[in-house]
Structure formats: C-alpha cells, structure tokens
C-alpha cells in the first residue's frame, strides 16, 4: 500500500484543504504528496506553533486544516495547543512522525519519544499510535472524529509503520 497516497486521499475525502508541514525524514513522502495534490493548499511553516496559527486562521476562514510534523514539535507547541487550539475549541488533525521508537537509528530522538505520549496525555489530546501498516485503516475514522469533537488529535506514526530505515 502507498501510505503517502492513502493519507492524502483520506485528507481530501474529509475536506481537508489546507495543510502545513515541518519536515521529518519519515514524512518526506507524504509531504511531497501533499504538495502535489491540487485539492490541498500546502504551506510549509518555519516552526510548528506558527503552523498551528496558520491552521487556526484557515479553519476560521472556513477551510479544514491539518498539520504534519515530528513528535519533537510537541515540545514546541504545548502553549499554542492549550491557549489557541483547545481554548477556542478548534479541530486539528496532527499527523506526527513518532521518532525515537522501535527501529530508530538516532539516539537523541528517544529523548523526546519518552515524553511524547505523557505530554499528549497530560494535555487530554486524543492520541492514536500507528505501528503496523494496517493501522492506516483507522485514519479516515480519526479525521471524522477530530472534526466531530473540535479538538486537536494526535496520530503518532512510528518507523515500523513507515517500513523502517532500510540499510541505516
């Protein structure tokens, strides 16, 4: 299955037409796919809290938005999630590469990985962890759930889900 294509298909099917991204190696393919889709306006941001501001504005402008980022960005965006996205009750699917999990080659990534779920839990952010390729089947339901409840929702996608790092 082409995960990048499936993620974009589900975004489009759920009327998501505004996507901001900050790259991660694991997300390179999906970011490229987002960029190529005519139905999606792709705006790279320089920092993830900035991206969440763009998404909040787009949402109030009548467009469903989403952010694609690395889990390290949870450390960057707590204030924005609490005082903007959650305080004003706005939906925000967060497609997150879950670095520092099984099959991770870079040791430093583990340092934020061990805090990721605890922080999301502390923030009462509904969190889904994709470990197997088949977990993508849930994505469409997660998007519907996000726009039903008007909350930020985290989808953590680990290295195993993306098929590992090859020879690295």
């Amino acid at each position, binding site marked *: 299955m082409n995960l990048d294509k499936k993620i974009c298909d589900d975004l489009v099917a759920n009327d998501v037409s505004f996507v901001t991204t900050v790259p991660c190696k694991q997300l390179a393919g999906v970011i490229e796919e987002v960029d190529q889709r005519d139905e999606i306006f792709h*705006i790279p*941001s320089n920092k993830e809290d900035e*991206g969440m*501001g763009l998404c909040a504005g787009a*949402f*109030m*402008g009548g467009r469903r938005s989403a952010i694609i980022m690395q889990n390290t960005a949870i450390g960057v965006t707590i204030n924005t999630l609490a005082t*903007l996205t959650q*305080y004003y009750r706005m939906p925000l699917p967060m497609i997150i590469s879950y670095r520092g999990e099984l099959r991770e080659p870079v040791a430093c990534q583990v340092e934020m990985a061990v805090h990721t779920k605890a922080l999301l839990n502390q923030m009462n952010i509904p969190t889904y962890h994709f470990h197997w390729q088949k977990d993508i089947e849930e994505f469409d339901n997660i998007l519907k759930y996000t726009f039903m409840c008007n909350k930020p929702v985290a989808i953590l996608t680990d290295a195993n889900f993306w098929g590992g790092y090859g020879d690295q």
Partner: protein
Amino acid sequence: MIRSEILKEIAPIIRDHLVVCNIGLPSQELHMIDDQPTNFYMLGTMGLSSSIGFGLALAQDKPVISIDGDGSVLTNLGTLPTIANNATGNYTLLIIDNGSYGSTGDQPTYAGRKTSLTAVATACGCENVVEVQDKDLGPVLQAAIDSDQMTIIVCKCDSGNIKLPVITMDPVVIKHRFMQAVAS
C-alpha cells in the same frame, strides 16, 4: 502617540474588516474602543497574530488585517518568510512598533534598539513594507486595505499604556461570532 491612541484613530478604518488582534493590551484596547464581531481577540498565544490572520486571508477572499506588536513579531520571526513566500493581496500586517513589550510593563524590545523590523521584513522577502510614523498611519493603512497587494506596515510609536479591564468574553464566543462574520 501610544498604541491606544493609534487604535482609536484607525477604528473607523478597520471596523468593517476582519481583524486579528494581538494578545494583551492591544486586544483589550480594541475591545473597549470598538468591539465588533469582525474582531478576533487573542487571549493568549503571544506571537501568532500574524499567522492566524495570514491563514485566514489564505482561506477566503475578504480583506484581513493582523494587528501585531514588535515583541510578538520578534518571538515568531519565522512568520515573515512564510508570509513573504505565500503573499496574498487581501492581507495586511500592521505591526505596532512601540519598541517595548507593552502589555507586561514596557520592557524594551530589540526592535526599539538596533533591530529594524522593516529591514527584517524586507530581507525576508516581503515586497511591500512601509514604515510609518504613528500620526501618518491612517491613510497608509487605508491604502493597504484598498490595494490588491499584500502590505506590511511597521508603525513606529511611543510606548505607554492606559488602564483598562481584561476581556471576559468566552473564547468560544469570540470564535463563534467571528466565524459567523467571516461567513456572512
């Protein structure tokens, strides 16, 4: 002029447009001077007024004005390249540059010292950057709204604050009536 005097002066110019207003005293002042459903008041999240306004401008066609502060732009400097590289004609960024973190007691910012936000915005690729003195802002802002080119206005003014109450309106109410105004 101080920020509250500037807001009083431009209130008639912006009252019929979508406005995203910076956290703290700027929002409290605008709320007191001319509360409108077309105003989105930030109650937190220092730095994101420009980003929220820009996302809104990209998502729909009506003119949008972000009222921002020098300190807040400095904390989210990454916003300027994003705005420059995705320019949209219905967007105006008004930076009220009083050279201080006004809401927290007028501690000086670097914008009031060696750093020129006008030069920073230009270096980031913004094409229409206008630096203006407080008393001259009105016509410049009106022209920016009327023009179909995106404009960044850096309005130099004095630091100083007036005493006024906090905004007690619920954030969801602020959002709801703003979204209705956007859609109407």
